[in-house]
């Protein structure tokens, strides 16, 4: 494999990844925005997090899998509950991982 070619590709990847990350904070930080835009931006966090999460839970292997063999989906229920109760990052991560590991140990899923 041509490592030189990959290196060039990496710098291109850096550029196209960094520009969308930096331009909005660079141009919008602290600037007063129209109310509608400001409201819209406030809904971006829940929307984008859910848009990344739900497909990972219901189609972990690329096909829709809403059933009891889908550990990703099953473990999400207690993880959601723990996240809701504790409002902390650690507890749901450990709960989810522990349950998935346990289920696999028992040969489930």
């Amino acid at each position: 494999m041509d490592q030189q070619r990959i290196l060039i590709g990496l710098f291109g990847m850096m550029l196209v990844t960094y520009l969308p990350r930096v331009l909005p904070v660079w141009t919008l930080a602290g600037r007063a925005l129209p109310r509608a835009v400001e409201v819209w931006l406030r809904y971006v966090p829940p929307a984008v997090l859910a848009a990344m999460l739900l497909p990972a839970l219901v189609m972990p292997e690329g096909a829709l899998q809403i059933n009891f063999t889908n550990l990703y989906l099953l473990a999400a229920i207690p993880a959601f509950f723990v996240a809701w109760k504790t409002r902390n990052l650690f507890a749901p991560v450990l709960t989810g991982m522990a349950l998935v590991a346990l289920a696999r140990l028992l040969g489930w899923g």
Partner: protein
Amino acid sequence: MEVPELLEEKTTTPAARWLGGMASAMPIVIGYVTIGFAYGVLANKAGLSMFNTLLMSVIVFAGSAQFIAVGLFAAGAPLLSIIATTFVVNLRHLLMSASIAPKLQGWRKPALAWFAFELTDETFGLHSGHFASHTPDPLWVFAANLTAQVAWVAGSWLGASFGQLITDVRPYALDYALPAMFIALLVMQLRGGKTILVAAAAGVISTGLMLAGLDQWSVILATILGATLGMGLELWTNKES
């Protein structure tokens, strides 16, 4: 560095603020070491040199795009198509950056530039949750981001170096660290009915688009539609959420 008016952080020492930021990133560290490891294993198997494997984690620092790029490099795809795919896959950060920008009032340009370099799905989730109740403290934020990136690079190195030793991470459920972290990050964003409705809509739309084969556009389109729904509901009911 010009520091904006702080709430509680002002009363603590710089060392305590730095440690606080590092501690807050610990769940991200678990996820990043694991997924970085998987990335390192894959990159190594695909034939990327150690230098390129780690450089990608340092200068691109974008989980899913790195996995896709490794696959494309291995398949001998044209560089332009690899770069274009990376652009589309990472375009969602444009929306994250815009949504976090209003919170960073008073930050100087170099601080904003550095912040943006380490703006990932996970650091975004962490900060947008935290900023809802705290004034952003640059020291705290940079400590969290740097900790996350060091974990990502370290995981990549471990995977590329010792990937042969662990053939399957599934028994340890390490593959579930990231989904579980997103659950926690999402829950932090749920404040009342409208945000729950927006999240549900965005999740369903994204899943639908992915099933329709639009994997690379699903997240950004679902986010735009979800946020528009939220804005519509809020302006229509004319009530703060």
